[in-house]
């Protein structure tokens, strides 16, 4: 009965070139050198050329929005995958960064680029301080607190009628030039992307991963976990606040709708689709999701339905995300093997 039919199973093996070029830093041939650098160059050059080949200025604005969401997505991915802190607080970072930059620009008259830089640092400090008491929380609790912070701040600004109340702060000046705005955003995203990838492999990055893996062991090694979590939250919120500050200067306006839920949900969707843990994945996720949502704009609210169904599909089918799949395909090949 069926015994003679030989069982076959798929086997995955690393490609020869991967093994040779992996870890050993003496790269012999151009082929190995290109094997490593080509994907990275494609990403960098592609992302830099993108604004130039865009049909109309409108699509350039879409790219700036992609950059903002990409910053948020990378910060979410960094915190969730390398720190174990699942934060639904993208809107919180955007709001804090945006409002600080608006106040600096509006009342102190700082030029946009200066106010963005200052608001990124100050915003990150404020976010870290505000989140400090919630760092020991785990899983669902931390997620819910970070989800509540933006809603709370929005209602607070609305109730106390400060910072321009519900009308918000208007008349902020935009970036000096169209191209400056575009390439400032892109360079920031690429800078943070490759900066984070390097950070993750440094000793500090290892400590953060250890905090996620087993924080009691880190405590037993004489290091305070809250301190290291605070450093990581500072880095992540710096990215978020930068995004917020840029958004405010692109639209020359800041209001309580900076705390909108979209800023929390879309980056997570992008990370899930792009592949969490690879830091490039979320960027890819944004590059896919934001333009799609623009194209579907004509369908009105059906766009959101389509959006959430993609998200549910990716989560439920638990495909590990495009980037992880891409890496696997790039580094390995599969063949059938008789058992």
């Amino acid at each position, binding site marked *: 009965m069926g015994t003679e039919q030989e069982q076959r199973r798929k086997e995955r093996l690393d490609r020869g070139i991967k093994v040779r070029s992996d870890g050993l830093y003496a790269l012999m041939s151009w082929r190995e050198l290109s094997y490593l650098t080509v994907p990275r160059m494609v990403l960098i050059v592609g992302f830099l050329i993108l604004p130039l080949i865009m049909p109309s200025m409108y699509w350039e604005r879409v790219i700036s929005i992609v950059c903002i969401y990409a910053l948020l997505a990378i910060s979410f991915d960094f915190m969730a995958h390398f720190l174990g802190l699942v934060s639904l607080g993208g809107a919180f970072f955007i709001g804090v960064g945006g409002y600080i930059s608006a106040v600096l620009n509006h009342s102190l008259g700082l030029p946009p680029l200066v106010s963005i830089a200052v608001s990124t640092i100050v915003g990150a400090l404020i976010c870290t301080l505000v989140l400090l008491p919630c760092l020991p929380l785990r899983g669902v609790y931390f997620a819910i607190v970070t989800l509540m912070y933006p809603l709370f701040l929005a209602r607070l600004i609305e109730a106390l009628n400060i910072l321009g109340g519900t009308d918000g702060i208007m008349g902020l000046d935009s970036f000096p030039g169209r191209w400056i705005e575009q390439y400032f955003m892109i360079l920031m995203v690429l800078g943070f992307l490759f900066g984070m990838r390097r950070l993750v492999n440094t*000793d500090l990055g290892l*400590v953060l991963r250890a905090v996620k893996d087993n924080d009691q062991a880190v*405590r037993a*090694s*004489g*290091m305070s976990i809250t301190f290291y979590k605070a450093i990581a939250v500072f880095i992540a919120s710096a990215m978020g606040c930068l995004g917020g500050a840029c958004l405010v200067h692109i639209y020359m306006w800041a209001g309580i709708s900076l705390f909108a839920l979209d800023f929390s949900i879309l980056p997570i969707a992008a990370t899930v689709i792009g592949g969490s843990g690879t830091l490039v994945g979320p960027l890819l996720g944004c590059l896919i999701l934001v333009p799609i949502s623009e194209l579907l704009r004509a369908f009105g609210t059906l766009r959101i339905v389509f959006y959430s169904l993609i998200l549910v599909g990716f989560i439920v089918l638990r495909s590990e995300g495009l980037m992880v799949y891409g890496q696997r395909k790039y580094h390995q090949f599969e063949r059938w093997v008789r058992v």
Partner: protein
Amino acid sequence: MSGTPILQVKEVTKAFGGIVALNRVSFEVNEGEIMGIIGPNGSGKTTLINCITGFIKMSSGKVLFKGRDISNKPAHKIADMGLTRTFQIMRPYYSLPAYKNLVIPLFSPRARRTGGWRGGGKLGDRDTVGIDILEEIGFERDSFVPYKMASSLPTGYLKRLELARCLALKPEIILCDEVFSGLSMSEIASMVPLIERLQMDGITLVMVEHRLRELFRVANRVMVMNFGEKLMEGTAEEVMTSEKVKEAYFGSEEVEEVMTYA
């Protein structure tokens, strides 16, 4: 072995809701000494270690380390002072390779100050220092064992990794929580000389154990606990002959056997 007490535990009590886990336990450990703590399951041994190292808040009592009061201080501060511990349930970083597991403790403020286990004040590259420590506690240097992922290491190596984590901090005292449990005879045999070498390097050890035969070979003094209270304290021989210990262990033959053997 100078006689000055390095660790003094006074009247430590801990109650979880109604259950009293520790009931006014007090003892002292002198510098360079190996002290054993034995007792049936649930006698509060691990809770005692957790209280001393600050992982659990004590209900009452004091702990002095080299004369300084460290009761209820945060765990990482106590570890930073040199009072390190291993875990009964091992806690390596499974997602990292073995030598990278040591990068974390070598990243701690204490390691930077003291330069790690053999550093003598200056901390070299964390990876090489890590591999040195691993080699010293029994990871073969030139094999690929230090580079294997922690998740694929056998229990013996993981237990050694726990010890290596404490060594990386250049500790003055290590509280070992059942280092021998779960090991095969051969692994224990190779572990005992390691413990003795640590003692010669001047490290004080407090070992919570069930395997009495190996403990009695290394321990200078032994304390027996039962239901959260200290039953008695004394040299290995006194403990083995005392009636109270027999009752606690209801006359387990093992004590008899060890008597004939020692």
